[in-house]
C-alpha cells in the first residue's frame, strides 16, 4: 500500500485512534481495561469465520492478538486463560458493537440474545464453581502432575507450532479420525502445567509443544483420564452458560462479530 505524503492526514489518523476503554471482568473477578475494537480488528475477527470448526485456531489466534493489542493496562504477560479470552470476546462484543445479537434458529425464526446477560451468568458460574476451574494436582506412583485451565500463551504455542502448518482440511474418514485424535490429545496437553517424576520436575511452559505432547503421551492412563474429567467438567459448565435455548447456543467464533 502506498503511503500518503500528507502529514495532516497522518495527524488525523493519530487523532482518531481508539483511546476509549471499557472495563471487562475476567475470570479472577477483577475488571481489566481494554480499548474498544478498531475497524481493522473487527475485519480480522469477521475474516476468522472461515476457520476449522474443530480447532478454531485462526479465531483463537486473532482474539489473542487483539486482546494483547487492546489491553490498556500496564503490561500484558499472556497469563490470561482461555476463559479470560472468552470473557474478553463477549465483553468486547458488547463494548465495541452492541449488547445484543440476533441468532437464527434452524426453523429460520430469530432470537435476540442479550450478551450482557450471558456474561453475568458466566461470571456467576465461575464464582460459584470456582473449584471446578481451579488448578489441581494428581499423583500416581512416583509421578505427579499439576493441571489447570490452559493459558492463552500455551494455546498460542499450540497454534503456532502445530495448527499453523497442519493440514486441517479433512477429506477422508481416516483423516478425520487422525485429526480428532490429535485435537483430543492437544486439548489434554494444553491443560497439564507441570510433571514431577521422583525428584525431577518439568515445567511444561518452558518446552516446545511437541515436547509437551511427548511427555503427555508417557503419562499413566489414570492421570490422563483424571485430566480429561477435569476438562470435561469445566467445559460443560462454560457451554451450559452459552446455551440460549434447546438446540441454540451463542456462537463463540467470527460470526459473533458479523454485522448480519
Amino acid at each position, binding site marked *: 500500500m502506498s503511503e500518503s505524503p500528507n502529514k495532516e492526514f497522518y495527524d488525523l489518523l493519530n487523532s482518531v485512534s481508539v483511546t476509549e476503554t471499557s472495563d471487562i471482568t475476567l475470570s479472577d473477578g477483577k475488571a481489566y481495561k481494554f480499548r474498544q475494537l478498531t475497524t481493522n480488528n473487527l475485519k480480522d475477527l469477521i475474516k476468522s469465520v472461515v476457520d476449522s470448526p474443530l480447532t478454531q485456531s485462526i479465531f483463537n489466534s486473532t482474539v489473542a492478538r487483539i486482546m494483547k493489542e487492546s489491553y490498556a493496562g500496564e503490561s500484558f504477560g499472556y497469563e490470561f486463560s482461555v476463559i479470560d479470552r472468552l470473557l474478553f470476546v463477549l465483553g468486547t462484543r458488547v463494548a*465495541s458493537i452492541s449488547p445484543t445479537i440476533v441468532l437464527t434458529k434452524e426453523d429460520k425464526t430469530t432470537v435476540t440474545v442479550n450478551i450482557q446477560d450471558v456474561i453475568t451468568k458466566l461470571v456467576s458460574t465461575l464464582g460459584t464453581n470456582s473449584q471446578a476451574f481451579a488448578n489441581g494436582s494428581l499423583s500416581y506412583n512416583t509421578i505427579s502432575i499439576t493441571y489447570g485451565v490452559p493459558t492463552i500463551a500455551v494455546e498460542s504455542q499450540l497454534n503456532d507450532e502445530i495448527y499453523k502448518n497442519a493440514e486441517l482440511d479433512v477429506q477422508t474418514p481416516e483423516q478425520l479420525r487422525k485429526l480428532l485424535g490429535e485435537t483430543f490429545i492437544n486439548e489434554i496437553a494444553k491443560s497439564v502445567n507441570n510433571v514431577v517424576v521422583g525428584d525431577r520436575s518439568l515445567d511444561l511452559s518452558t518446552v516446545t509443544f511437541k515436547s509437551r505432547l511427548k511427555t503427555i503421551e508417557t503419562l499413566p492412563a489414570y492421570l490422563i483420564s483424571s485430566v480429561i474429567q477435569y476438562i470435561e467438567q469445566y467445559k460443560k459448565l462454560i457451554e451450559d452458560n452459552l446455551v440460549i435455548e434447546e438446540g441454540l447456543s451463542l456462537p463463540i467464533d467470527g460470526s459473533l462479530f458479523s454485522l448480519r
Partner: protein
Amino acid sequence: MRFKLKTNDKVVLCKELNVSLYKDLLKSTYGDEVDLPGFLDTIYDILVSLTGEPISFFQELSVVELLSCILQLRINTFGDRTKINLTKEEAKTSLELRIDWIIEDLNVIDKSIISKTIENENFDIHLEPPTTQRLIEKTDEDYLYFVGGVTIGDKLISIKTNTDAKLFVDKLPAKIALDIVKHFECVVKELQNFSFLDRYGIVEQNFTFVPSAESVLWFTKLVFNEPLDVFYDNLFYLAYLGHLQNSYIESCTPGEYMYFVRKLEAIQAQQRQSDETPNNSQVIGGREEAINDF
C-alpha cells in the same frame, strides 16, 4: 454565448459546446465497452475548454455534480427535453423526459440521501458523493468511496483517495465504522427506490441513479444520443452538398450544425420533388434523435 454552469460551491461561466468538442464527446461514448477513464478525461477536457477552469476543478467535483454539469451542457446545447421509450408488456409508449427535472432530483439525491455528517465526540465524519476520480480507483469496500472528509475542531481535512479512506476507517472504533456502513446501506436502498419517473406518475418502470462512473456514461449516452455514423454522414453531406468548410462546421454549435442539416434536408426534399433526375436523389441522414428504450 455563455451560460452559467452551477456546481454546489461555485457558478462558472461556460461557453456553448462546439461541433468539434461535440464530436469528441460522441466518440468518447461510442460502443458497448467504453474506456471509462478515457471517457471521463474527455468530459474534463471539454468542460475545461468551455469554462477555462483548471482540470482539477472538474476532477474534484462529485459524481453528482459532474453529471449535473453534463446535463446542464446538454440543456444549453439541444434543449431541456429528450424522448425515451417506455416498454410495458411489449407495448411502447414515448415519454418526453425533462432533463432539468433530473438535475433537480440529482440535487435532492446529493443533499438528502447521500450526504451526511456522522458526529462524534472529538471529530465529525463527512460522507458525500465521491468524485469520479475516486470511483475509477477500485476498492474492495464500496462504502469507502463515500468517506469524503473529517472535521476536527474547526479544521476540515479532505480524504481524497480510497487508500486514505481505508487507512482512516481502519483506525476508527468499530461502532463508528458500523455507522458508516449502515448509512451506505441506507443510501443504496433509497437510491434503488428513487425513480426519476415518479414525477410523471410512472411506477411500473424504474429510472434510477447509481453513483458510479458507469452511470455518468449511461446518462451521457442518454442525452447525447446522436449515432456517430449519422453524425459523420451529416458532416460529409454538409461539406459535399452544402459546400460548408469542415473547419467552419466544427466551430459552430451543435444547434447550428443541426440547423444546417435540417436546412439541407429540406432543400434536398424540395429538389427531389422538382427534379426527377436520379443522380440528385442523395438523402442526408437528418438528426432524428435516437430514442432510448426502457
